[in-house]
């Protein structure tokens, strides 16, 4: 049982980490807590679902499609909404939250509240420590790790990546040095959108598709970002996995009902007593 929950925790934690990576990038550069990623999570899940169910796309193709849609959505949100309100953080936050609700409710409107079962794409699994772990679960972790490495390399090695790093440390200084902030903004939003989409599609075959599926992952990922304090890429990964594990085990050994509440309670406590975040970078 413990092992089962541990593995569940790792898997769900990996999805949190993916979303958190995008949120982290966006928040550290634009100072916007991008709640709309929760909406992107939901919409892209449905896009992938219909791609597979109606158009018969293979899983990988639908995943890629979802990532593109996610990136496009995020790009448009930044370009046509957030950018109008540069310098007005409160309005941007209000927009982000409004979008979160709007997109989730659009999903209800278009596709009803009924849960949809995402078809399995890779049946079977292996036995690990006496436990049967489905291949689809392993894929989640593998893809997540791969993406983390990819984003890490992107940020460290490419020109845009360096621009992103500079901007996340000091936006004004970066602009002075000649970095095109618009490009950087678009880039991080697209990355965020693609990452949220990936998390959604990887998780869908395991936990189905429903309109409010983005609510908790978004909040949990925000918790990871806030508690991690805009740390390193590795920090987000560890934070995400850690939260997933703690949550999963807590749900079994402490209380299933309070599983989610517990996370928020811890966040609130930490923020109240450590206003500078756990790593002093608030």
């Amino acid at each position, binding site marked *: 049982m413990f092992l089962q929950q541990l593995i569940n925790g790792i898997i769900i934690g990996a999805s949190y980490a993916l979303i958190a990576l995008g949120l982290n990038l966006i928040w550290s550069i634009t100072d916007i807590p991008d709640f709309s990623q929760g909406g992107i999570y939901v919409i892209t899940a449905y896009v992938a679902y219909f791609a597979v169910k109606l158009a018969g796309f293979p899983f990988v193709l639908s995943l890629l499609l979802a990532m593109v849609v996610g990136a496009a959505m995020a790009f448009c949100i930044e370009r046509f909404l957030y950018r109008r309100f540069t310098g007005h953080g409160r*309005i941007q936050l209000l927009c982000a939250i409004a979008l979160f609700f*709007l997109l989730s409710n659009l999903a*209800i409107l278009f596709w009803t509240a009924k849960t949809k079962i995402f078809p399995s794409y890779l049946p079977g699994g292996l036995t690990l420590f006496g436990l049967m772990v489905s291949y689809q679960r392993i894929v989640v972790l593998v893809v997540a790790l791969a993406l983390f490495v990819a984003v890490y390399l992107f940020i460290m090695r490419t020109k845009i990546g360096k621009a992103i790093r500079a901007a996340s440390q000091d936006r004004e200084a970066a602009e002075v040095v000649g970095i095109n902030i618009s490009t950087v903004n678009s880039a991080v939003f697209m990355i965020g959108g693609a990452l949220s989409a990936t998390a959604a599609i990887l998780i869908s075959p395991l936990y189905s598709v429903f309109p409010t599926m983005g609510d908790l992952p978004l909040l949990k990922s925000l918790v990871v970002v806030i508690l991690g304090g805009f740390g390193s890429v590795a920090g987000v990964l560890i934070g995400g996995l850690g939260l997933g594990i703690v949550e999963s085990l807590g749900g079994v050994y402490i209380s299933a009902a309070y599983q989610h509440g517990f996370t928020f309670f811890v966040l609130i406590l930490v923020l109240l007593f450590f206003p500078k975040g756990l790593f002093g970078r608030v």
Partner: protein
Amino acid sequence: MTDTVLTKKQRQKRTRTRNLIIIAVVLALLAILPQVTSDYITYVAVLAIIYAILTGSYDLTTGYTGPLTFCHGAFYGIGAYASALLTLKAGFPFWVAFPLSGIMVFIFAAIIGYPGLRLQGHYFAVTTFFFGHFIYLVILNSVSLTNGPMGLRNIPPPEGFLGITFTSLNSSYYLIFIFGVIAVAFLYFLVNSGIGKILISIRENEELSQAIGVNTALYKVLAFSIGAGIAGLAGSLFAHFFRLLHPTTFAWMTSEMVVIMALVGGLGTLIGPIIGAGIVTLILELMRFAPEFRFIIWSVALIAVLIIEPRGLMGLVRRIQGGKK
């Protein structure tokens, strides 16, 4: 040209008289409402008044003092459940439970606000979002206490006195109407008093406010807690009027709704959010057959307001008036 004929003081007096007349007319209309309209409209009016109290108190915190919060629905909910449980399970009379629940929410908010309002940037706003959801989860899952998703029923109406009872719709209406008037009057006097100016100074420029001697941390917590306390009182009124509580009434959508009402009306004007509450309540009821549409309209409305006129209806009014000059 007429402006030069009247002095500034005379113009002010005229505006004040005009406003007083408008208020008197509105109050009179509201006072006779149950006598001349159907039960259904009276019921909607009760909700509108409760929402007006909610948005007015929200405006105190966010419109006048500054910090954006997303947990007003949670304060409403804590007040509702606290009052209901105090009467149902602890046997208190409504007239004790009502103020007690307001005080409880006030204290709750102070505990969260005191450290929370020190957070920089968006952290406090995001924390209130989490807090709001957390409270909803607690209410939902504390089944032994709140009955969770099965709802808390048979909440007693307020006890009567002097031969008046509050079991009928009309009498409940009048009770809530009177409390509404008291709450709005209180808020009005507060924001137009010396304290109101101090709060506005904090919103406008917290550093300058500190430099002139204002203990901004204290005032922010006070404004946050008083706003919350009043929301708690509104919750209590709702609980004993509706006599049935369900956790979803106090989920994050409610907090969002308060924000939207206040924003659509115009943050920082008091009258704006109250009007916003009226409008949104109306739409709420008109669209009660299609809940998903409601949420979508609200979200779109919020974004639209932000794009067109972030200062809401009152901002539009001011724009038009400014054009006249």
